[in-house]
């Protein structure tokens, strides 16, 4: 065992850090109220910013957005640990760059897509300027995705898509939907569902914004009315989409803004070092110290899980149990960090961004609300626990 980064990893870390410090968009990290683990306050889900596009293209040019992919598909041929370092630092500095297309759809296409599908989509994804949204959930199919009712019927070379999706984060600023729909209504869902890519500009798609509790328009309800999708956009085999979806969900659970946790924790540490209450620095208060020590330990565990999953992938082990563990741990941490921070900051903590007296720019108040989403989005904590108990530990359902 060796818990150190090796020389190559250290060198890469320094290179990424240098890039970030040079290319950071002025003011972006201050303005973006993204909370680690949360899904409701991500700037990139709200607006499409040309400056962010350019930045992503720059990262794309370096092959960084898809650095762990094989070189033949435009990947960087780097390790997953290096990729983990990259995303850790991006999120630490509050730099945009994580995306559904590179982190969820791309890897799923590489694993299951035909060569034709790969050659059409992978180069565009690698470049960094193609945005996908996830079209999975429906009003009656949240945790239970087998209950989806959206359907896609074959019509010559096309699929005709009808139905309704909900909770599509950033759908209104994306290019394409990454969608599941029923393609064989007679078969059970896991034998009659397909996964495909749908262009947002297709006629017949309408979107209705949904505002989340932080006041952000991140969600969309999306209606499909006889939308034509070329059959060649189907990922892998027709009707096998449910299996691919399960793998795509594992990829999604591995998307963690690990550096964001450390950054916000450091903010909190600094706050306690500089804030006096009752004549004493908060950092000297035994209760505050205990809370911070607890958080530090939980962040350390999350970091270890994060690098463990990357290391497993480098060693050809797919971390599907660990994906649920890390999702569970980090999303609960998202709440604990916000909650402990709010408790430590006391009365001031409730001040919203923009208030003159708001500590740490009011980020923790936003995070406090946003952390409600962390333990729900991308599969609720209860579902992660079910997976861990049933898939992981072999406990029976009945």
């Amino acid at each position, binding site marked *: 065992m060796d818990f150190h980064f090796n020389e190559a990893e250290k060198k890469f870390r320094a290179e990424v850090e240098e890039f970030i410090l040079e290319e950071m968009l002025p003011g972006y990290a201050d303005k973006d109220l993204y909370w680690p683990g949360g899904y409701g306050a991500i700037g990139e889900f709200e607006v499409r910013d040309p400056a962010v596009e350019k930045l992503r293209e720059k990262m794309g040019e370096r092959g960084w957005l898809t650095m762990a992919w094989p070189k033949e598909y435009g990947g960087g041929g780097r390790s997953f640990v290096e990729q983990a370092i990259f995303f850790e630092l991006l999120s630490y500095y509050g730099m945009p760059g994580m995306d559904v297309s590179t982190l969820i759809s791309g890897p799923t296409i590489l694993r299951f897509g035909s060569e034709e599908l790969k050659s059409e989509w992978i180069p565009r994804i690698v470049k960094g300027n193609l945005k996908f949204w996830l079209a999975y959930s429906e009003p009656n199919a949240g945790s239970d995705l087998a209950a989806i009712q959206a359907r896609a019927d074959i019509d010559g070379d096309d699929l005709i898509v009808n139905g309704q999706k909900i909770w599509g984060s950033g759908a209104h600023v994306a290019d394409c939907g990454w969608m599941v729909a029923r393609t064989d209504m007679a078969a059970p869902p896991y034998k009659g569902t397909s996964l495909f890519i749908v262009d947002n500009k297709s006629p017949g798609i309408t979107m209705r914004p949904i505002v989340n509790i932080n006041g952000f328009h991140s969600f969309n309800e999306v209606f499909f009315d006889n939308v034509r999708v070329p059959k060649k956009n189907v990922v892998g085999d027709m009707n096998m989409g449910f299996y691919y979806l399960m793998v795509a969900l594992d990829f999604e659970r591995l998307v963690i803004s690990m550096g964001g946790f450390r950054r916000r924790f450091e903010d909190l540490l600094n706050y306690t070092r500089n804030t006096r209450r009752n004549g004493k620095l908060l950092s000297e208060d035994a209760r505050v110290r205990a809370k911070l020590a607890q958080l530090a330990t939980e962040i350390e565990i999350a970091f270890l899980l994060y690098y463990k999953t990357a290391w497993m992938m480098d060693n050809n082990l797919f971390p599907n149990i660990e994906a649920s563990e890390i999702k569970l741990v980090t999303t609960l941490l998202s709440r604990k960090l916000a909650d402990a921070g709010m408790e430590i900051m*006391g009365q001031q903590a409730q001040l919203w961004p923009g208030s003159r007296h708001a500590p740490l720019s009011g980020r923790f108040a936003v995070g406090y609300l946003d952390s409600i989403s962390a333990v729900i989005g991308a599969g609720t904590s209860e579902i992660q626990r079910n997976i861990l108990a049933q898939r992981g530990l072999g406990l029976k359902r009945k």
Partner: protein
Amino acid sequence: MDLGLNEEQEMLKKSAKEFLSKECPKKLVRELDEGDSGLSRDLWKKMAGLGWMGLPFPEKFGGNGGTLLDLIVLLDEMGYNIVPGPFFATVVLAGFTLMEAGSEEQKQAYLAKICSGEMIMTLALTELDGTYLPESVETVAEAKGDQYILNGAKLFVPDANVADFLLVAARTKSGADPAEGISIFIVDVKSRGVKVTPLKTLGRDKLCEVVFDNVTIPSKDLVGKLNGGWPVIKSILRKAAVAKCAEMVGGAQASLDMAVSYAKERVQFGRPIGAFQAIQHYCANMVTDVDGSRFITYKAAWTESEGLPSDLEISMAKAWTSEAFKRVAVLAHQIFGAIGFTMDHDMHLYFRRAKAGEIAYGDADFHREIVAAQLGL
């Protein structure tokens, strides 16, 4: 022993429930939460018409002659409906302060108008650090002839934006003991040099910053003894803490009710989600928290109502309920899934109030410290 409500309290509870579900629908709550003032004059008038503002005050000032415990029954229902507005500030903070320390004339002039619903008042106590300790009172009232000159800044003053008068805790003497030398004054919000700015908060309650710049106060507007304000404030903070608990208990009850009925309706995997043991256990944890909080709150309120020493009971109640409501609201959110994370859903209205209530009048850590001290530690 009698652990039930009496007949009048039962009636009050029932009529409050009926009245509020009709007169304070969530649509109004949202409008007031999102708006600047937080006050519906119409609702205020109707509540006054029911005698709510005077509920715990003597009849000779137009009150109902009830007790703190009666008020707690009402606040429980108000918390259930998360009624916005300056009721708490006016009745609990200002009303009890006047009742305890005001002169006969002050009671006639102010408390009577509170009871009739004609006057909105609040207490300006906390300052920049937001704590409820005497040392944080730095606003100064300096004697000058038969006047005082007030300078300083208050933060987190509830509903000052709609108040007619403020009760201001200010330092009139500085000495070794910070609890000595604090006095309470009545200040007309329209006085020259008073500036009120509402703060934007997570709770969307109307907490304000109030700045006093050479504000002149006539000596007759001193409430209670000169330099003797802190014991009064302490007594008010006790009542405010238990009153806030009552609101939180109501809010927690509503969160539980909403979540349980959703768990019965929402179907996933071919069954109501309430059929999953994970969800059942959440509901069981929630109801235990709601009942525990309610009992400990009512015990504390009864103790204070009876004039018995209540520091221990009230601090236990506030320490517990602050965290219990938060736990209940978080679990309720968990049961609602994504739909509860939307602005249009009611759950976040409760989640926000759980946080605001937790902080108000001492958080859990603050009150646990008092409990420990009361245990002789």
